[in-house]
């Protein structure tokens, strides 16, 4: 032991001891977990620059559903598939139209696609809440700058809550940003309709007050878009005078006007009719995408002899869901309707491949080999796959016709719908002449004869022709109480309905399906008594 004692006192040992203590003295710093290549959330929501980039982040989040390619890009098409204007032919999107998916708690379509809506829009809302709270707390910032941030975030929040409310009915709303401390204070009950609508109104009124009609950058919320959304909220609440006033304001603002039918969905949509669009850009950072909406909704015409994929025929296409007989007939009501001529919709696919041309056919003639037989599955399957009319509203004419990946901007809200909201609101207020004026503005633009009588059916018919597959139809029918009836009458087409292996979806359809099921995995995470929508158990 003596030896040790002497060494304890020796210089060498002392040096080691110093080394030991030195290397630990700055341990707090040494063990700090540092953000070396990431932005901190604190910066993001507490500085004007951070908040502005967080607002841009909201637009990017708002694009995620459209660029989601899972399940063959079915998610952005669920609303279309569930409407009364579509026929599900094949693929995942058609499973939603056939009610095999998205119509019960147990099915995969609910756990995936329906859940995506719940999660995505609540995420936008929380980030908007954080921005709004952050902007309100900013000191020493230009008031206009603050209000611009607030207005865009509030418009985005209102839009998201309105979507969630209309889809899921039993929703919970909050303006409190989520923190680690409050994340487990789970909602115990749904919010009342009054709470929801008062928030929607105040958010949108603020946005209207603070947004310009022509924002500096196309794709941002504008006053026109906010007023349009405000009109939709108002008409949902049957506040027809407010709806009419908002529609009038947009229409008469001098900043928006209807374009020609060819222009509506041409190019990047940056024109006077567009109120709100989601932006994409090919091969650009932040350009998002691609989306494959067009591929889902144009028939697989190239499988027919004598046709190859071409821009004229609608590019790469698989034809999973498309226009059903009901809306095709509506569009055929007027022989001069321009919307069928490869502008909104494509009704004819032309022979363009000389080598495969069937006998007796000429290049440029429309494909007419198949017939939509009422009973012969062999016939009508080929018709639906290859020849059924398609939707061109999401078609990117700039990519190769063999490429299903499209980067075209997606139209969300446009002035034609404002006119039709105005028409409906004035009709309900008893002002039929003003209603007809607005309705006919849309009709004459499409080169159809002006209507002379107005009623709800006429408005719904015109909305079908004009707005089919833009994602509004399902909401409109729900709002007017027509959803169940119209689906029973028109969903898919009867010959398809009879051929589905699980039987006719009309037998599955129930009135309660006007609310989507809150996915079970989300219910599990909410308070024990959080109410599921009626009918789903």
């Amino acid at each position, binding site marked *: 032991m003596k030896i040790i004692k002497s060494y304890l006192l020796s210089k060498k040992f002392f040096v080691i001891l110093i080394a030991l203590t030195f290397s630990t003295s700055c341990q707090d710093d040494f063990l700090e977990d540092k953000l070396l290549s990431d932005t901190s959330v604190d910066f993001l929501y507490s500085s004007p620059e951070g908040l502005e980039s967080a607002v841009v982040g909201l637009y990017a989040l708002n694009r995620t559903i459209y660029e989601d390619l899972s399940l063959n890009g079915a998610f952005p098409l669920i609303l279309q598939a569930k409407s009364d204007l579509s026929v599900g032919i094949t693929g995942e999107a058609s*499973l939603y139209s056939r009610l095999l998916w998205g119509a019960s708690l147990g099915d995969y379509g609910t756990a995936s696609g329906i859940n995506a809506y719940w999660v995505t829009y609540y*995420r936008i809302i929380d980030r908007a809440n954080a921005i709004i709270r952050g902007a309100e707390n900013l000191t020493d910032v230009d008031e206009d700058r603050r209000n611009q941030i607030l207005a865009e975030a509030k418009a985005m929040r209102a839009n998201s809550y309105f979507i969630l409310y209309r889809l899921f009915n039993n929703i919970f709303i909050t303006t409190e940003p989520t923190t*680690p401390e409050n994340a487990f204070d789970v909602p115990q009950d749904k919010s009342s309709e009054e709470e929801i609508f008062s928030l929607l109104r105040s958010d949108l009124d603020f946005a209207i007050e603070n947004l310009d009609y022509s924002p500096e950058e196309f794709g941002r919320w504008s006053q026109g878009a906010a007023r349009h959304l405000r009109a939709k909220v108002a008409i949902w609440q049957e506040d027809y005078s407010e709806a009419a006033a908002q529609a009038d304001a947009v229409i008469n603002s001098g900043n928006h006007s209807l374009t020609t039918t060819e222009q509506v969905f041409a190019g990047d949509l940056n024109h006077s009719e567009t109120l709100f669009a989601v932006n994409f850009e090919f091969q650009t950072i932040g350009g998002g995408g691609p989306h494959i909406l067009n591929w889902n909704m144009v028939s697989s015409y190239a499988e027919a002899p004598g046709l190859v994929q071409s821009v004229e025929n609608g590019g790469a296409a698989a034809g999973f869901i498309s226009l059903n007989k009901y809306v095709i007939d509506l569009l055929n009501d007027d022989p001069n309707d321009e919307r069928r001529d490869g502008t909104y919709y494509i009704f004819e696919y032309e022979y363009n491949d000389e080598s495969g041309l069937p006998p007796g056919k000429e290049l440029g003639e429309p494909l007419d080999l198949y017939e939509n037989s009422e009973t012969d599955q062999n016939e009508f399957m080929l018709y639906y796959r290859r020849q059924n009319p398609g939707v061109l509203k999401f078609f990117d004419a700039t990519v190769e016709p063999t490429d299903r990946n499209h980067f075209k901007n997606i139209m969300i809200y446009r002035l034609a719908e404002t006119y039709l909201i105005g028409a409906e609101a004035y009709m309900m207020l008893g002002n039929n002449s003003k209603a007809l004026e607005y309705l006919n503005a849309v009709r004459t633009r499409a080169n159809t004869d002006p209507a002379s009588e107005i009623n709800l059916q006429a408005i719904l018919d015109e909305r079908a022709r004009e707005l089919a597959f833009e994602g509004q139809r399902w909401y409109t029918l729900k709002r007017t109480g027509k959803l169940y009836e119209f689906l029973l009458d028109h969903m898919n087409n009867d010959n398809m309905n009879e*051929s589905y292996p699980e039987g006719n979806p009309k037998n599955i359809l129930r009135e309660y399906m006007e609310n989507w099921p809150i996915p*079970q995995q989300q219910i599990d995470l909410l308070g024990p008594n959080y109410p599921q929508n009626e009918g789903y158990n």
Partner: protein
Amino acid sequence: MKKSTCLLIIIFLSGLITAQAQSYSVSGTVVDENNVPLLGVNVIVKGESRGTTTDFDGNYIVDDISTGDVLEFSYLGFIAQEVTVSSQQTIDVQLITDSEALDEVVVVGYGTQRKSNVVGSVSSVEVDEATAIPTTNVSEMLRGRAAGVQVNLGSARPGGESNIVIRGNVSVAPNGNSPLIIVDGLPFDNLNDVAPSDIASIEILKDAASTAIYGSRASNGVILVTTKRGVEGITRINYNAYTTTQSVTKNFNLYDGSQFIDLRREANRNRFTGDYLRDENIFSPFELETIENRQFVNWEDLVLREGVIQSHSLSFSSGTEKTKIFSSLNYFTQNGIIPNSSYDRGTFKLNLEHQITDKLTFRGIFNYQNATQDQETGGLNFTTITPLARPFDENGELVKFYLGNSITAVNPLWDQRESTDESKINLTDVNLNLTYNFTPFLSYTLNTFLRNRNTNRGIYRSSLHSAGDEGIDGIGVLANTLFKQVLVENIVNYNPQINDDHSLEITGVQAFDEQENQFTQIDKSGFTNDALGYNGNATTLLANVRNVSQRRLLSFLARVRYSYLNRYLLEATARADGASVFAANNKWGYFPAVSFAWKMHEEPFLEAVESINEMKFRVSYGATGNQGINSLESLGVANDRPYVFNGQTVGGSTASSRLPNPNLKWETTTTFNAGVDFRLFNNLFDGTVEYYKANTTDLLLDRSIAGTTGFNVIRFNVGELQNEGFEASLNSNFISTENFRWTLGLIFSKNRNEIISLTGETDDNGNPIDITDSSGRRLSIGQSINNIWLPKYDGIYQVGDDIAGSGNPLAQPGDVRVVDQDGNGQIDDRDNVFINTDPDWYGSITNTFNYKNFELFADVYFVQGATRLNSVLANGELWKGAINGIRTKYYTPEFPSTQYPRPKPDTHLHLFPFAVRDASYIRLRTLTLGYNLPNNALSKIGIDKLKIYATGNNLLTFTDFRSYSPEQDLLSNGGTSFPETRDITIGTNITF
């Protein structure tokens, strides 16, 4: 690399062929007490760095001996003998067993120990048996080699990796179940960075007593690898080479062309009328053409080729009293069974030890590694591509649109041709270690380590590739990862000589460890031409990613070992760790452990009992930790979310969907271990039996949170997980005669994983709630964390079943039936049940037979009671006849199957429950036949030892799981998994 290896061999060989001095040779035989010849006895000329080893018959020859030289005969487990050469040319020696042992020295944390003194649970791996597998994947070599060690195949591709789980999953954290890898005392982030032929020993530390010294990283056990060192007095050159051919092994068939056509027709048959649709409706015009011409494709044949491995290892070792050197060069090259997949690796190693003064010793390790891994383009679905295709035209040239011009799908072989994906890895390790012995009892060691791994990955998809065509003009991805690790340790050892009855050893360590990852990725497109691949000039920047992460660990630890009368052993360790990845006020964790052992055979009352050679009881109890989470989880991080306005990129951000937890702290595993080590009946049997129970608390649980919060997940500390198990290993030298020996080894492991508690929250009925973690795994009290949570498969609906009253009233005969647990006429989450995927038990039986110079080694591996989801059977497209896959006798109205569903044009419901399959198996993993050339023949040409061998791996597998291997699912990452193979190797091992 190949060239340089050859060159070195020539240099070494020429060095050996030198003129011999005038003297004579001495030969003889070495036997044990029973006159059984001993193989591998070291015969060294004392004072000179040369010598030899005995062959199978115990024979040796040493050349160049002069009278008066002293020959030293040494062999593990025997008392060494020295014989002075007078003039005799034959010296036969009988070695006497050293009762002290069979007592090998084993490596433990921060030191070594005689095996008989080990108090914790430590398994040594038979390195020769382990390295009989032709791979660079060292993890795979440990499969079946030690009790309690489970190996799960990660990727079977050349250069692939596997996951090791020691005594079950103790953690729910993403990186929470990998054992700590310590190579020569240094923490390695990848076990496969060690060249197999450099390994001298592998020890697995399993209980808290042996691992607590590694504290916060040790809760999954520790794998200690020691590489070869120079030995005093022996100079050796060893050359080991083998070549392997690999071929696919499987237990299922694909549909051939006509069977596939039938499947598609059946799938599109009208369910109500039974009518078939016309072919025109269900096949494209192109498919109709191939059907007419009967030109079908067998993609498996077309894609897969024979894989080839070549490996060369050359090592040199030498040692004097003061300096010891080991150095090696290894070269490994493998062309995988999928084209464009390969792996080439060259490694260099230098282990150096030099005693600078009496008190100061220097040790250094230098490793350098250069590897290239090539990968095929992603999503190569050779098991699922339709056979109705035309990949080649009339001239045998690849066709781009192989399903006809109207379908834009691109020929996967075309994409293969148009893509490159190569990773170049450069690894440099430097370890400098200085030990100063103040006295014989007190020493201080400074241990430093620096590791740099640079991984450069380049991917190019040409302008003809399906990802680079259509106006993109080629896509290139450049990814660079720089991994940097620095370790500094100060170690003090105090080992006072008290008296014969008491022995004491104290170790104290202070350490810090820093690991930094710098990742840069650039995606670009618009290449002017394809000639330069990803090195070319591009016009468009598609993405640029930069990620820097760092983790630091600061530690203090101490260990005390005490033994009384060499019978009662006590060991105590304590470690304090501070880790940067945890929240600001929860950085530090403390990990104590104690263990006790009783060497019963040392007791006087047992000394006379001859049948018990060793009997040791051990118990231990202690805590270890887990820091297997990523950095920044306690901090709020924003994700980049750029957008585009007017065609211009605008920077955007949003809080990531992971909610930070500012209170995140350690996961702690407390382990109780009890075991018996025994050696019986004059060393006929030896073995170990062990029981353990490990409870992990404060689980680093990733928990899904309500979508209404706008976040997905948060990690927090809650709950408890238990692993309880039993392990046994037994070795026996059944037969040990002059010409024939049979050694048998048995290893058995059983582990039960169970969640004890979770958040403590309850549902409306007062039952504890289940938690879904971020990987979708369902955690439930009483269940294993490795489970499948799905409805229970209940056969196939048959005609006459009560379908309307079942859980799926819309079903048709031929659909998959599952149990409607709550009987509400609907199948949803509430009908799900838990199916444990862990094996009930696993183990191995190894047999070594020696007959004269022949050696036969056979290793059979068992996994029983494991469950796995077969994702091909679960794929709805298969049952639509849209893709190919595992062929089954599916249901048809004419021949109703009770096992397989009816093909249908839509995705079947409940295919996942149907595809949950038993993945138990028994596999002949290794079969090796070796032949040692007799010494007398070799010594004439200057060779000490020469062995030639042939090895077969995965020769036989018995399993019901349909795949290329019961260890893997057929599909992964959107393509077919890289199949595990059957390997045939021939090789040679030469020592000079």
